């Protein structure tokens, strides 16, 4: 080992120098105390004017989002830039974890870049970390009341409805499982797959069952379900649906219900079935603590929730959040609002309340 151990000794002075130099570079920059609250909660009649003037002074806007870039994020930001050329809006796309890692690290280092955050699942991380600013928009009035956050930290950015996908070659329509009880039928043993370690996958499935049946009955049911040897799939919901199309798994649980509809539209042998109660979750718009450009941020959130922004979302085959804009026809059939299905909206508080319980059950019976 002597050969290797020699390094630290001979390199010691260098290392000391490096640490010193790094310490100098790393000295935290001072931040101006942001009086952001005024802009974020401004309710005056001249709101639009105040925001535009403030945003113009700020000159720039940075959005971190996990919307798909080509269909939704870029068109949305481009439309915003066209409407407000004085504000140069930029975006960075990452998934929930990447956004949270990046933005939390930025806040810790006093080097916040992002002004608006958008993702699903990110809300609970940011709320728990207490790293969000309160904000309010008159457009919240157009969103169904149950989806508006009482604490003013989150605004819904998109809805997702979860349910079953099945391969129509292997499981002819009509013979697909329709209820929780159906899933216990021995013929499905080894044929069901879900996304493991996923908030909108296995976790949400378990929470939905617990909420629908109660803790005790719910756990008894899940114990039986574990006997079906559900495949723990590791990957995105869309990828799992692709595996169903390929025939790798006949049935997938708790995927986004509109994905199979889009593929079926292209002729793929797949269909979706909304098992009631349909668990639904929302993606959220958020403003990180210590935001540098509050006016521009609010201007963007207003734009996102306006008819113009919502139509960009609709065209990208996301479900709009304002009541008066219908989703695209090809995916409307599984929207509980449109198809009149029993919906179980799982909000951020529910996620918190059931998180530990669901994880414990999953660890005990399924992993």
């Amino acid at each position: 080992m002597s050969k290797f151990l020699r390094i630290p000794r001979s390199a010691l002075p260098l290392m000391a120098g490096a640490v010193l130099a790094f310490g100098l570079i790393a000295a935290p920059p001072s931040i101006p105390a942001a009086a952001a609250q005024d802009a974020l909660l401004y309710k005056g009649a001249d709101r639009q004017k105040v925001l535009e003037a403030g945003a113009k002074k700020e000159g720039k806007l940075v959005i971190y989002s996990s919307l798909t870039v080509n269909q939704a994020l870029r068109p949305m930001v481009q439309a915003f830039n066209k409407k407000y050329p004085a504000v140069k809006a930029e975006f960075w796309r990452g998934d929930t974890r990447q956004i949270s890692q990046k933005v939390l690290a930025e806040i810790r280092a006093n080097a916040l870049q992002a002004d608006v955050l958008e993702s699903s699942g990110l809300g609970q991380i940011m709320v728990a970390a207490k790293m969000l600013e309160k904000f309010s928009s008159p457009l919240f009035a157009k969103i169904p009341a149950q989806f508006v956050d009482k604490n003013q930290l989150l605004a819904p950015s998109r809805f997702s409805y979860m349910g079953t996908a099945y391969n129509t070659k292997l499981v002819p329509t009509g013979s697909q499982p329709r209820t929780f009880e159906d899933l216990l039928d021995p013929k499905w043993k080894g044929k069901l797959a879900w996304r493991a370690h996923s908030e909108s996958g296995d976790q949400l499935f378990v929470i939905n069952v617990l909420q629908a049946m109660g803790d005790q009955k719910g756990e008894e049911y899940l114990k039986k379900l574990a006997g079906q040897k559900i495949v723990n799939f590791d990957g995105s919901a869309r990828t799992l649906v692709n595996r169903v199309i390929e025939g790798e798994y006949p049935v997938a649980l708790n995927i986004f219900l509109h994905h199979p509809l889009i593929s079926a539209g292209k002729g793929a042998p797949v269909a979706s079935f909304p098992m009631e109660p349909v668990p639904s979750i929302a993606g959220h718009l958020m403003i990180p603590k210590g935001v540098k450009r509050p006016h521009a941020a609010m201007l963007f959130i207003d734009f996102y929730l306006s008819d113009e922004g919502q139509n960009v979302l609709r065209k990208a085959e996301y479900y709009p959040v304002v009541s008066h804009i219908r989703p695209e026809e090809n995916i409307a059939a599984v929207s509980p609002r449109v198809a009149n299905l029993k919906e179980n909206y799982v909000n951020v508080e529910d996620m918190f309340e059931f998180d530990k319980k669901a994880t414990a059950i999953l660890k005990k019976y399924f992993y």
Partner: protein
Amino acid sequence: MSAMIESDKPPRAAPDRPAGGLRAMLSMSPLAAIMAAVLILLMLPAVIYLVQSSFYETKFDGSFGAFTFRHYVELFTNDRFLKNLVNATIYASGSAAVAIFLGVVQAWIVERTNTPGRSFVLIISIISLGVPSVLYTISFLFLLGKTGPLNQLLMWMTGSATPVFNIYSLWGMIVIEGIEFAPLSFLLLSSVFRSNDAAFEEASMMSGAGIVTTFRRITLRLALPGVLALLILIFIRAFESFETPALVGRPGGVNVLTTDIYAAIQVEIPANYGQAGAFSVMLLLIVVVLLYWYGQLSRHAEKFQTITGKGFRPRVMDLGRWRWLTAGILVLMFFVIIGFPVGIVFWVSLVPYYDGVHMAALKLMSFAHYGTVFTSNMFQGSLANTLILGAASASIVAPFTALCAWFAVRRQKGGAVLDQLASLPLIFPAIVMGVAYLQVFLHMPILYGTLLAIIIASSVRYLPYGMRYSYAGILQIHKELEEASALSGARQATTFLRIVMPLVAPAMVTCWLFVFLVAVKAVSVPILLAGPNSQVVAVTIFDLWQNGVIGELSAMGIIWTLMMTTVSVGFSLLARRYGLNVR
């Protein structure tokens, strides 16, 4: 041979004994000292962050909480760590064995035999290096999955109603990772085989030994340090690899250390940096032991130097009729490494949705996904960034490691330090490196989110690869050439520039090409370091994969692969024009 070298030992060679800290520093040439300082400055903060994180609780906002030994205690009280360690070891050694086997066979056929069409093998390697690893792994899942063509064929042949084999298993991971590393293995080994003096083989053949015996007892023996170094490199790389374990292992319930790190950072809420840190420190220690072992192995490397001042000429062997067999092997390899994987990706890029390879899908084929790729500006903004990233990283790594390797091989003062420092980035699983460098650059607001930050991080990340190319290249050059230069009055710098550089140029060009190709397809590091204006193409591809848009992903993958192949073929043609033999 070794006796000859003993007597050749120049008085100038530094004695291999430890020197005191400051004294060693002072006696280091200023250049070596500056290089070491740069390396330390680049890596130390990240290492500190890593070690620190393993001793603290992580709070919800990602900051450090209370000091704790909990993460280490948990490692050793939980049998999961041991189990995953065993899995990782089997997986890494298996992959290394597969890759080396494929690499040795190809390198030997290409460099040492007169097999027809052998120079085309280079193209296999270049195309394969141009395919993003996520796409490559996925292509094998298409090929070997339950509904893939191979299983379908075997089911038809055996009359079995269920799939014949399950790719989502440990051996599946080994095969896929091994094939993925075959081109790297070939590129590194071919430089080793090329520079072995053919005189030894000729002597063996003249003494009556056959081709097989000569290969086994002479060729392979001479290539031994190169092969072993490569074995360790691939072992380490597979040990810390992430894509294949995540895509192939996890669905099949096979976990390794990196997938646990991934789970701790990307699955748990809040991200458990503590546990990830503890895992990474364990990985670090394992890699340190491996590197030490590697150092021991290469200590006697002098015995294997074969480019000497005497007429050096590698020569190919006449295989006679056997050359058609070796040609057949090369064709087979072409299909396994490139033909089938790229073929299936091409197939997927043409069909509206993929549900296996069958005739009915032919009717649905169109170029629609390509149309989407071109009309939706998928490359917008990221193409230039990506090419700059690749070219800059490669242009930093290639000359830097050539110097490091020269210092190390010639046992100049500070050479050992440089060697170890340049190999140190191997300890960072890409995913941990992304997080560690994010912390580092956040403290440098000028760099944060810029392309330069990604270039720095990826140069650091690919230093060890550059080192292996350069090391292998310089190892083969006997010092008598430099001694001749020194005797003729040239200074150290002149010797390096006029004697060493031209001789290692082919290795450096290959090194440049390799770093370019791996840097442009990396995902884990750029994804966290990039800002709004420094996006790169590989991250776009990864996003498409995450969103499951496999049709467009495949179309974009094919276009990207074509572009990378063009870039690297163009580059090697250019290099050849200037007299560099790039193989």
